């Protein structure tokens, strides 16, 4: 079961220690996050990202306002069966971050996560590929 969080992207992109990265990087955990890119601005499209934590103790995230926990349940879990408190927490986090996902119209937790990730990839500028000059 995936442990998912929405985390603020921190850093300024400078190579020497200023990487754009999810706030979870401040903790000794294993984390994978997509950071959709705005090519024109050469910076992340959004100020937040979805993070999958693969290892480490996430208890330390508690109280860190930059990190919001998503419900801990299987992706195929119907929305109606998600723990009400966790669902409410997710609803509040999405609202606070301005992430417009209609939770009640999604059938499962997985579809909610997919919708959030889609929103993460939607910015003012459509992501394009970086074509290198060789």
């Amino acid at each position: 079961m995936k442990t998912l969080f929405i985390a603020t992207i921190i850093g300024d992109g400078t190579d020497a220690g200023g990487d754009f990265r999810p706030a979870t990087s401040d903790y000794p955990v294993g984390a994978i996050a997509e950071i959709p890119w705005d090519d024109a601005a050469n910076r992340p499209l959004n100020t937040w990202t979805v993070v999958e934590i693969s290892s480490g103790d996430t208890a330390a995230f508690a109280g860190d306002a930059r990190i919001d926990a998503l419900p801990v349940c299987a992706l195929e879990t119907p929305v109606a069966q998600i723990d009400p408190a966790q669902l409410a927490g997710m609803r509040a986090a999405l609202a606070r971050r301005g992430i417009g996902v209609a939770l009640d119209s999604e059938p499962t937790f997985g579809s909610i996560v997919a919708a959030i990730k889609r929103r993460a990839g939607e910015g003012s500028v459509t992501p394009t590929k970086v074509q290198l000059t060789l």
Partner: protein
Amino acid sequence: MEFLRDPLNGTPGDDLTAANGAWVRQPGITGALIIAPDGESVCTTATTNTAAYYRSDAVPPSPDYSVSADVTILDAMVNASAVGVIGRASSSAITHYQVRFAASVTAPNGAWQLRRIVNNVASTLASIAGTYVAGQTINVKMVMSGNAISLYLDNSPTPLLGPVNGSTIVAAGFPGLLGSNVTGTRVRIDNFVADDGQVASGADGAAVVTGVASGAQVGIAAASGTAATAVAGVAAAVVTGSSAGHGSAVAAAPAISASALVGAASAAGVVAAMAKPSGVAAVAQVGVAAAAGGSASVASPAGVVAVASATQPAARGAASAAPLGVGSAAVVGQAGAAAGTTVPATAIVGVGIGAVASVASVGAVAGAGGATCTPAGVGAATSVRDAIATGTIRIPATAAPPGVAAFALIGAAVAVEHGLFARAPAGAGYMPRRSEYQARPAQGGHQVRPGQAGGARPAAIQKAYR
């Protein structure tokens, strides 16, 4: 297929670009990688907190390739120092993907990271806490496959990190190395390898296996219409053939219970292989091939019991055969030759196959082109118990017209109790595997069963099984 291997040797103190002109810094990079005091690896200079990103001028055949190096941390790394490899590196900007170990404040702690640098703006896409052991060498590999970027350590089959989304940088770029803020001799980077992970094999050749006794064995390679190999005296083996043309070939043979297998072939611009066993009893054989610049398919023999067909991605001039769904598949046969070289019919390297009581061998081609065949992981192979090869197995390979992105599969295999045999393709030139002839009964000498009409005299029966 490796397209770059550099032991990173040179005169101690020389910049890597001086030691090997194939290396250049990414634009704007001031940090340096120099030949280490041992003369057999590189290290960084003591430049404070300055990244050293070096790329090779070796052009990958596609954006899908791996970059690896052996990294040894000899002494405590200072905070924010890092060492690793890079890929898809631009020649005109500080743009690339990289995997690295980055030290934290307290040695030996730190983190493995998978990063993206776009026009000198860095993002950490994945990270996991880690530690290092002074003096311990770790093989660090970044695998780039389409939009999937992953970090592997010490040839683990599973990634430590990733895959992460690598859709931002899609051009092949170049492979390279990185070091950052690592004081002088505290790290070593050695044995740099860039590999497109693909295989290629030859055509227009033939493999001949003779004298096989109760076993199956071995398709072997041919490059540029030359190579031919022979293996004799194989007993109870399950095996594989592979071939080499431009680069290497890998053929995965399924450890099919009581069966044998496999020819693999393909070369850049050339696609197909044909394999036609003949005069073989209870031996299965399959031809496999891949296309240049596209994907390859592996076809398992039709009708082979307990063998699942597989499709295997292979890019650009590569072939790879890895039958799936086989309970205990083993990788077998590996060959490599420098592009454009010819692999003559020369050496054969017998390789023991574990778990095969009677021992088996695998043919290998080794020639001027450097092709080798090094079967590995055959431990799970099972013997071809009932496979009986009578006479000679001939496995000629021929090339289909270039540009045909497909595979050739010749020979439908059929299960025969514990064994398999290959049905020869249609066409002339193949001896019947078995012939049956039943003389026509004499007139009036046959019996008519009760209730059965007739009484006509049956015809003679003659069948030739291919």
